[in-house]
C-alpha cells in the first residue's frame, strides 16, 4: 500500500465520524461515541528501521 492509498484509507476511516459530528451539531443528535480513533504512530517504527539500516551501512560494519 503506497502513501496515497494509506492516506485515502485514513480519510475514509474518518469520514463516518465527521458525519456523526455533523449530525450532533446540526440536529442535536447524541454526542458521537468513539471520537476519532487516533491512529497509532507510524513514524517511530520507520525511524527505528532507518537507524538499523544506517548502522548496517556504516563503514566497518559487515566487512
Amino acid at each position, binding site marked *: 500500500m503506497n502513501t*496515497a492509498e494509506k492516506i*485515502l484509507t485514513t480519510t475514509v476511516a474518518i469520514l463516518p465520524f465527521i458525519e456523526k459530528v455533523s449530525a450532533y451539531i446540526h440536529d442535536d443528535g447524541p454526542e458521537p*461515541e468513539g*471520537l*476519532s480513533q487516533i491512529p497509532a*504512530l507510524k*513514524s517511530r517504527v520507520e525511524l527505528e528501521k532507518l537507524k538499523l*539500516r544506517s548502522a548496517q*551501512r556504516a563503514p566497518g560494519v559487515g566487512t
Partner: protein
Amino acid sequence: MKTIWALVILMTLAMFVNTAGLVGCSSSSAKTAADVIEKAKVPAFNGAVAAFVLLDEAEAHRLAAMPSATPEQIAAAEQRVRRLEVAEAALGELRQWLSGENKDLDARGKMREVVDALDLVVKGLKNEKLAVPTHVDEALSAARLFL
C-alpha cells in the same frame, strides 16, 4: 487525494461556522456562546487529529524511503518523531476528556500542547527544507478554534 483532504478540512470548518451561525438567530433553539464553544471542541479535536495523521504519515513515508541516513538526519528525525509522540499522548488525553472521562483535564492547555508540538514538527520540516504535507495548516487552524 488533495481534493479529499480539502473536503475533510472544509467540512470540519463548515461545521464550526454553521454552528456559530445558529447563535446569531433568534430561533427557539437559542444556542448560547457557551454552546458554540462547547461544540467547537469536537471539530477542533478532529482538526488536530487530521494534522497529526498527515504529519505522521508523511514522516513515516519519508523515513521508509531513505536507504540510510546521516547522524544529523537521524537526530532531526528523532526530534520530529518525539514531538509527534507528545502530540499523540496529548490527543489521547483529550479524547478521554471528550468522552466524558478525566473531566478535570485542562483541555485547552492540552490542545495547546498538541498544536505547539505539531507546529514544531512543521518548523523542523521547514528548517530541514523538507516538504510539509498539504492541508496541515488548515487542519491546525481548525485545532486552534479551541484555544
